[in-house]
C-alpha cells in the first residue's frame, strides 16, 4: 500500500490523499471508523436554570449539543470504564456554564469551560434574546462515538476512484472545456489540454465523454478526502482511527487463539 498526499487545506481543515494498492472495502473501513468510532467531546446534559429566549429548552439543548468542542483525547476517557464508576469526575466529564442577559445573539464563546484547553471551537449564535430576556444554564460534555449520535463525529470522509483522462481526436475543444463543471480542460487555439493541477477534482461525471472523443477511465487507486469538523485535527483523526482499527484486529486475533 502506498499513500501520496494530494492537498492539505489548512484553513478549512481538509486533507486529501491518494491510496494505491488497496481495494474499496479497505478504504470504506477507514471512512466508517472515522465517522463512527473516533471519540470526541460533545454536550450531553444541559441543566437550564432560565431560558426566556424564543427557542424552547429542548431546541436550545439540541443546538448546544451540536457545537463542536476542541477535544483533548489524552486527558479524557469514556464514562463507562472510568475510575469513578459512572459517578462523573474531571477525567470523564467536562463542565461548562453560560449566563447571558445582554440582548442580541447568545454566542457559544460566552460559555465558560472548566478546562481552558477544551472550549467551543466556533463562535456560533446559539439563540437570540430580546431585552429583559435571559439565558442561564450549565452543561456537561462527555466523550462519545459517532455511531451513537452524529454530534460525536469528528469529521467526514469520502473517496472516489482516481480518474485517468486521455484526449483523443477532439472536434470542438472549446465546447468540451466549457462543459466540464470542474474546469479540468484548457482550450488553446482549438487544441484541448489537461489542466494538470485540477485532474483530481474530476468527479467522473462523463460530460466530456458524452460530447466528444475523450476517454475517462478509473484506476484501482482511491482519492480519500477527510474534512475535520474542528474537534480534532485531520492528523489526529487519522492516527486515532488507525489505532482503533489495530485495537479491533488485536482483539479479534486474541479471541481466535
Amino acid at each position: 500500500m502506498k499513500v501520496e498526499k494530494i492537498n492539505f487545506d489548512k484553513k478549512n481543515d481538509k486533507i486529501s490523499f491518494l491510496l494505491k494498492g488497496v481495494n474499496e472495502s479497505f478504504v470504506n473501513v477507514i471512512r466508517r471508523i472515522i465517522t463512527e468510532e473516533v471519540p470526541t467531546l460533545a454536550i450531553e446534559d444541559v441543566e437550564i436554570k432560565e431560558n426566556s429566549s424564543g427557542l424552547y429548552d429542548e431546541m436550545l439543548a439540541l443546538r448546544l449539543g451540536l457545537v463542536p468542542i476542541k477535544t483533548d483525547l489524552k486527558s479524557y476517557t469514556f464514562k463507562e470504564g472510568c475510575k469513578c464508576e459512572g459517578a462523573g469526575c474531571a477525567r470523564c466529564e467536562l463542565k461548562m456554564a453560560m449566563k447571558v442577559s445582554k440582548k442580541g445573539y447568545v454566542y457559544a464563546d460566552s460559555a465558560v469551560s472548566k478546562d481552558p484547553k477544551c472550549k467551543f471551537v466556533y463562535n456560533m449564535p446559539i439563540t437570540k434574546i430580546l431585552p429583559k430576556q435571559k439565558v442561564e444554564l450549565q452543561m456537561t460534555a462527555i466523550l462519545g462515538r459517532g455511531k451513537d449520535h452524529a454530534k460525536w463525529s469528528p469529521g467526514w470522509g469520502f473517496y472516489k476512484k482516481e480518474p485517468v483522462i486521455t484526449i483523443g481526436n477532439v472536434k470542438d475543444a472549446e465546447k468540451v472545456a466549457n462543459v466540464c463543471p470542474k474546469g479540468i480542460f484548457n482550450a488553446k487555439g482549438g487544441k484541448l489540454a489537461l489542466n494538470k493541477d485540477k485532474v483530481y477534482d474530476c468527479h467522473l461525471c462523463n460530460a466530456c465523454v458524452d460530447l466528444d472523443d475523450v476517454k475517462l477511465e478509473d484506476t484501482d487507486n482511491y482519492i480519500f478526502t477527510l474534512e475535520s469538523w474542528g474537534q480534532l485535527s485531520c492528523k489526529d483523526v487519522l492516527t486515532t482511527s488507525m489505532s482503533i482499527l489495530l485495537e479491533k484486529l488485536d482483539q479479534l486475533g486474541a479471541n481466535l487463539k
Partner: protein
Amino acid sequence: MLIPIRCFTCGKPIAHMWEDYKEQVSKGEDVGKVMNKLGLDRYCCRGVFLGTVELIDLAGEFKRF
C-alpha cells in the same frame, strides 16, 4: 427560525458563518461568490443558507415574561 448549527445533510458546522454571510449579502455581493469564499462547496450546506429566514425576533416576542 435561526441558522442551524450544522448542515442537515453532511453535518458541517455552519452557524458561525451566518453573520458574515448576512452582512456581505446585504452589501449587494453575489450570494454564490460569498458562499464560495466562506468555504461552502457542497450544495447541501449552500441550501441551508439560502433557505434560512430569521424569525427568532418575532418568536421571542411571544415568550416575553
